[in-house]
């Protein structure tokens, strides 16, 4: 078990180095630098700015110094946001994205798991069909369709919410719903599948035979095993929620990490792009790791090994 964890942690190092290297050279390959869009900078000033950011150095030197700073946790200065470091920008945007992602995850679990349980327990009845179709609808209405549609109905038509912004508590409702409902669909399907598999096993029949109530059978005996697929999906799922927030933050104009990433790509703000990409990668890797460990602890077969 400890060995597994240690091995997985060691595996993350090449992943992060790879991400840093690929993003670094990709941003260097982009035609047009961050300074090109500025109008009429005198040549001398441009040279000075380039020297200040180390852009006049040969490529390998830039790479080496970037990786060196990275080891110390320094993601460098932003090219577009004057006098602000990438670390500061990420620190300011992270709480917003975390709040959005956390709310969305809660919605996904609170809607998805009960829906999946209901569908599995009443398999092949209208409850199952209704729940399964609802889940499929959630999956087939991706964030960039669901978001604008929710805005159209609840913000513009019924005028219950603001169409964009992140200022008041009620501004959280539509973005979190948009992001959460898609994953509620996936989680409902996984819960249904996992529960169906467990409910057909011998120990469930034993539990029923000794007279345990249906509620006890479902929640005490079946749920633990039935939720395994959901737990293993949580790693990639949370990663998906995080990337999903690129779109959500753009639609709803939310000052989070995702919007920083997208705008930095358009602005050719290389350090901010690499910084946010690396940060996302680290987050995704860490979450996958956590999901794997949680799964191993829940599964008696893996725990024994």
């Amino acid at each position, binding site marked *: 078990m400890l060995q597994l964890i240690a091995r997985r942690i060691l595996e993350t190092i090449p992943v992060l180095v790879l991400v840093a290297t690929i993003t670094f050279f*990709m941003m260097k390959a982009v035609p047009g630098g961050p300074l090109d869009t500025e109008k009429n900078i005198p040549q001398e000033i441009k040279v000075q700015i380039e020297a200040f950011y180390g852009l006049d150095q040969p490529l390998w030197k830039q790479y080496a110094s970037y990786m060196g700073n990275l080891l110390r946790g320094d993601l460098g200065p932003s090219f577009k946001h004057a006098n602000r470091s990438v670390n500061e920008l990420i620190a300011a945007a992270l709480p917003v994205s975390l709040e959005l992602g956390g709310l969305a995850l809660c919605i996904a679990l609170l809607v998805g798991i009960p829906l999946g349980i209901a569908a599995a327990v009443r398999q092949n009845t209208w409850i199952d069909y209704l729940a399964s179709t609802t889940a499929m609808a959630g999956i087939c209405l991706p964030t960039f369709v669901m*978001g604008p549609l929710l805005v159209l109905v609840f913000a513009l038509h019924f005028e219950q919410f603001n169409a964009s912004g992140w200022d008041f508590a009620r501004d959280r409702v539509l973005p979190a719903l948009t992001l959460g409902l898609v994953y509620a669909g996936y989680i409902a399907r996984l819960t249904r599948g996992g529960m169906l598999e467990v409910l057909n096993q011998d120990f469930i029949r034993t539990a029923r035979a000794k007279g345990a109530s249906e509620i006890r059978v479902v929640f005490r005996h079946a749920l633990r095993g039935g939720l395994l697929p959901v737990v293993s999906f949580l790693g990639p799922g949370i990663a998906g929620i995080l990337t999903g927030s690129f*779109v959500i933050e753009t639609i709803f104009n939310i000052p989070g990490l995702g919007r920083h990433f997208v705008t930095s790509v358009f602005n050719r703000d290389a350090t901010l792009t690499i910084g946010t990409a690396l940060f996302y990668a680290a987050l995704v890797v860490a979450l996958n790791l956590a999901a794997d460990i949680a799964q191993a602890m829940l599964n008696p077969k893996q725990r024994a090994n």
Partner: protein
Amino acid sequence: MPVTAIASPALAADAVEPGRSLWQDAWARLRRNRMAVIGGVVLIVLTALSLFGPLFLAYSYEEQNLALGAAPPSAAHLLGTDKLGRDQLARLLFGGRVSLLVGLAATSVSLTIGVLWGSIAGYAGGKLDAVMMRIVDILYALPFTIFVILLMTVFGRNFVLLFVAIGAVEWLTMARIVRGQVLALKRQEFIEAAVALGLRKRRIVLRHVVPNVLGPVMVYTTLTIPAVMLLEAFLSFLGLGVQPPMSSWGLLIKEGAEQMEEAPWLLIYPAAVFAATLFSLNFLGDGLRDALDVRASKD
């Protein structure tokens, strides 16, 4: 089906020969699955409309009528027009061609890489297998959406690149599935017989192993197409995919979302068609999975 990109028709026919009843069984089971049948029919209709519909329309997808502007649906323009006065129906059907083409082409790319990678790793076994699958594990951990976004920025919004980039992202799961299947197949007698007959490895993999993993591959392909179309639409929505005056469903949804207050029809129709396509593909994929009795497993 893009499956034929892997096995030439002759190979596929060869593989089906001994197991014909299995495929007939599967077909019968699939036909009994109402949602899968509806999904299939919707897909055929949408594909036919996208392919042939534009031929019968009075307007092309890029023909502007600035005087008209964004007009609601009318007899002349059944689904209305966008802000440049372009016929929304023409753009929707043409966008369908693009979105479906991206779906099919990118899926073929991922299919080719995934099947070859998985069958080589599974068949070779040993160190090569360990190295190849470790590469897959590492790539799995990379946040690919980010790379696709970067790729589109670096190399411009090139249409062909879009196929390649998306295809290169989606092959990993396919490789894992195929490897698992191949590992199980390898121990079967007809493969041993082929080895005993002295067939070359390359021939065994291409002629005996690949055709036998077609079932799971077909199922997963059907489920990859919606994932790929989703990614294309996602990129187009962010402004990184298909560029105007071209059209794709993702782009139309983006344009619709920008002016949904004044012109809700520009958002509603593309969103509905896109969702219906994803719905159909997913139901068809689920139906195929049940019909071919393929269990989704990680390895």
